[in-house]
């Protein structure tokens, strides 16, 4: 029988560091069923039969945040054999608040007071033995960062788990509260285990709706609630919370001696500068510039070029030696074994080229993830939210959405992955859906092509593309915020600003690798499949002598498909099959759009900005149609790599399709308006399309200015579903 030990504690208490040291490389990272909250499990070093589960960092066992619900469902339903509760010694008062709740679950609890070095450095003192006596459970001192006392803590937890003696909650509420709790416990009866009764009774008293789903028969406790609310003149939730904090204060008074009051710590000094009224924004801009500059333009570009042009291109040099590229190695291997042409095409042009294009982003992503991990771990990320919240919350986004969007201007893939730093589920989903509206570097060739071919390289085309992207984000935020998808309980922005501290290299490396790896895995599945399908469609077709591989894309299945799809794009002004095909190949990688036009117009290889085909393209569509084509390609579903990232981060098929559908739908409607109204202005042509465009704009403006009346309907719906 294996033993399960759950690690529980507040965010920023050093839980991840402890988990990493206890389990080493023996970890499994996944998601909790059905939600995007990360689940980590690992075997305790030196114990094959002990599994450690890292619960999400939480402040309380309230029913309001996803993390809290996940953690408590696990603790109630799966019942680990012991809980190792980590407490930040430098912030003991609030940390103990969760502990009082954990101890009511009827599971053996051991407490590990972390960051004792900081406590001692500040000249404060925690009496561990007194704390242990008061709380009625074992308490040990550890320093997760230095690895001190952690083995001891783990061994004690294992011993506790084997003994199976639940920690009796020594904390008692006021007599009146205890009286009603007793009466509720009686009403619950034998439905739950004896040791879990107290927890359920407290939750029922707190009017916790989510707990009722865990009970077969929900006892009616309205009498008890009314009685106690009357007696103490407050609502039950407040009564319980107050009582807990009063109890904690009484413990702290005896066990925690704070020497220095009001003396500024190093962290305070840093914060005084970093979030200073005047310096905060310049410092923020400087840090963001640095992150962008290093991970996107300099080191990131070298890494991506090395991966794309070297490893997956023409080979590269290692200490002066020529190292052949992967496609070259595979090609010679396939030639040697006399592989059939079509199979060689599939492997080289389909799989290797497609997946290579995606994996080429990995080095760049790893660099970015290292930065993000550092910013998160050192405590600056919380300040980013603090500084930017005011602007972003208007669009239903989080202050932290700035980072994904900035990174997204380089490449949408790491941009989407960067959204993981946003804790709030709705803010994160909104960010994922809108990040790719910002033109990424692969869309620049499309912009250059359209600007060069139809606008004589006018200066305003590129800035206008960014403007369209930003406007799409802002408008989407305002409109989506009002839809049912993004309604429900308002997410409170009540956030801890943790003390600054230097993260460990190991933690950063691990976080970087975990995020990178989850993307690589996607590249091996969904992205691989998608690129094979597109490769197949563009290299096979019907010719004079039946179905087979075709030399020219003009004869391919994709071309036929383009012909079928073309009418859909007619209202957008570019209803010829070549444009449709170009847009489809853009799904593999956006810069392919230019190359595809080159092939379809019969020019073969073209420059990055497609200068050879400017004339032909200008002859095949009007300027307004070209701009509409540009807008469509900027806003529609991103490349497969980015879609893979969206799938990975949404971790939910329905939400993935909502995101892709929304992006493509918005792209279509905006392009339609651009073309129809642009045509009206330039040529004076007025038709059904123009009317549709005007109606769309009126509807759009209505959605933008429509007042938000969310909570009423959401509450009614919730009440109805609860019945």
């Amino acid at each position: 029988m294996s033993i399960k030990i759950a690690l529980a504690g507040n965010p920023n208490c050093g839980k991840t560091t402890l988990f990493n040291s206890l389990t080493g490389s023996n970890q499994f990272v996944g998601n909790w069923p059905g939600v995007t909250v990360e689940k980590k499990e690992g075997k305790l070093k030196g114990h094959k039969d002990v599994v450690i589960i890292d619960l999400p960092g939480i402040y309380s066992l309230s029913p309001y945040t996803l993390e809290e619900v996940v953690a408590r469902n696990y603790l109630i339903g799966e019942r680990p054999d012991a809980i190792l509760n980590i407490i930040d010694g430098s912030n003991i008062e609030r940390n103990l608040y969760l502990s009082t709740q954990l101890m009511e679950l009827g599971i053996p609890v051991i407490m590990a007071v972390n960051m004792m070095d900081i406590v001692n450095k500040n000249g404060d003192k925690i009496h561990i033995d007194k704390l242990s006596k008061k709380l009625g459970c074992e308490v040990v001192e550890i320093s997760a960062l230095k690895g001190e006392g952690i083995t001891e803590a783990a061994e004690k937890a294992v011993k506790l788990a084997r003994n199976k003696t639940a920690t009796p909650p020594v904390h008692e509420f006021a007599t009146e509260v205890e009286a009603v709790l007793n009466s509720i416990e009686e009403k619950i009866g034998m439905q739950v285990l004896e040791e879990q009764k107290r927890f359920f009774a407290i939750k029922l008293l707190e009017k916790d709706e989510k707990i009722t789903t865990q009970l077969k028969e929900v006892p009616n406790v309205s009498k008890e609630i009314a009685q106690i609310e009357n007696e103490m003149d407050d609502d039950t939730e407040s009564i319980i919370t107050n009582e807990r904090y009063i109890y904690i204060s009484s413990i702290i008074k005896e066990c925690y001696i704070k020497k220095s009051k009001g003396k500024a710590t190093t962290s305070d000094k840093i914060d005084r500068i970093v979030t200073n009224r005047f310096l905060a924004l310049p410092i923020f801009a400087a840090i963001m510039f640095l992150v962008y500059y290093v991970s996107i333009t300099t080191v990131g570009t070298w890494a991506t070029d090395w991966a794309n042009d070297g490893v997956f291109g023409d080979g590269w040099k290692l200490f002066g030696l020529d190292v052949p590229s992967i496609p070259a190695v595979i090609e010679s291997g396939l030639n040697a074994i006399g592989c059939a042409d079509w199979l060689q095409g599939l492997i080289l042009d389909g799989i290797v080229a497609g997946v290579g294009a995606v994996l080429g982003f990995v080095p760049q992503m790893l660099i970015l993830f290292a930065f993000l991990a550092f910013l998160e771990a050192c405590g600056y990320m919380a300040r980013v939210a603090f500084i930017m919240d005011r602007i972003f919350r208007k669009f239903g986004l989080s202050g932290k959405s700035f980072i994904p969007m900035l990174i997204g201007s380089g490449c949408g893939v790491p941009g989407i992955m960067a959204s993981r730093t946003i804790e709030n589920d709705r803010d994160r989903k909104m960010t994922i859906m809108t990040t790719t509206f910002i033109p990424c570097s692969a869309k620049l060739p499309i912009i250059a092509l359209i600007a060069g071919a139809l606008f004589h390289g006018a200066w305003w085309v590129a800035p206008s593309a960014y403007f369209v992207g930003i406007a799409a984000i802002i408008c989407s935020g305002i409109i989506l915020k009002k839809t049912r998808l993004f309604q429900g309980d308002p997410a409170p922005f009540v956030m801890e600003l943790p003390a600054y501290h230097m993260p460990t290299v190991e933690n950063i490396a691990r976080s970087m690798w975990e995020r990178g790896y989850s993307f690589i895995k996607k590249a091996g599945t969904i992205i691989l499949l998608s690129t094979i399908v597109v490769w197949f469609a563009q290299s096979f077709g019907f010719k004079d002598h039946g179905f087979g591989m075709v030399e020219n894309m003009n004869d391919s299945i994709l071309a036929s498909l383009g012909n079928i799809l073309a009418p859909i794009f007619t209202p957008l002004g570019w209803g010829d099959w070549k444009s449709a095909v170009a847009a489809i190949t853009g799904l593999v990688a956006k810069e392919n759009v230019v190359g595809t036009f080159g092939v379809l117009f019969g020019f073969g290889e073209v420059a990055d900005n497609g200068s050879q085909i400017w004339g032909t393209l200008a002859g095949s569509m009007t300027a307004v149609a070209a701009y509409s084509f540009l807008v469509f390609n900027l806003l529609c579903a991103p490349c497969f790599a980015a879609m893979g990232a969206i799938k990975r981060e949404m971790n939910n098929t329905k939400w993935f399709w909502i995101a892709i559908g929304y992006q493509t739908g918005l792209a279509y409607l905006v392009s339609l308006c651009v073309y129809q109204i642009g045509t009206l202005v330039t040529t004076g042509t007025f038709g059904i399309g123009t009317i549709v465009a005007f109606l769309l704009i009126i509807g759009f403006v209505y959605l933008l200015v429509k007042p938000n009346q969310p909570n009423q309907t959401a509450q009614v719906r919730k009440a109805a579903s609860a019945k």
Partner: protein
Amino acid sequence: MRTLKEIKCGETVLVKKLNGVGPVKRRIMDMGITKGIELYVRKVAPLGDPIEVTVRGYELSLRKADAEMIEVE
């Protein structure tokens, strides 16, 4: 009656009452802002919102709209 929203930087106040209901109120309480506790208003974000307060020995940020729910003296 003053609320936390009106308190200037650098002032220390006592929490008198928490108004409101639901998740936001619970969250505020969970984070340690309960009746009778001392709050020190440390700073306001560069753009004027949210604010940062010191409560129970740590730093907490909350929006002015939520701070309005907290009655202080």
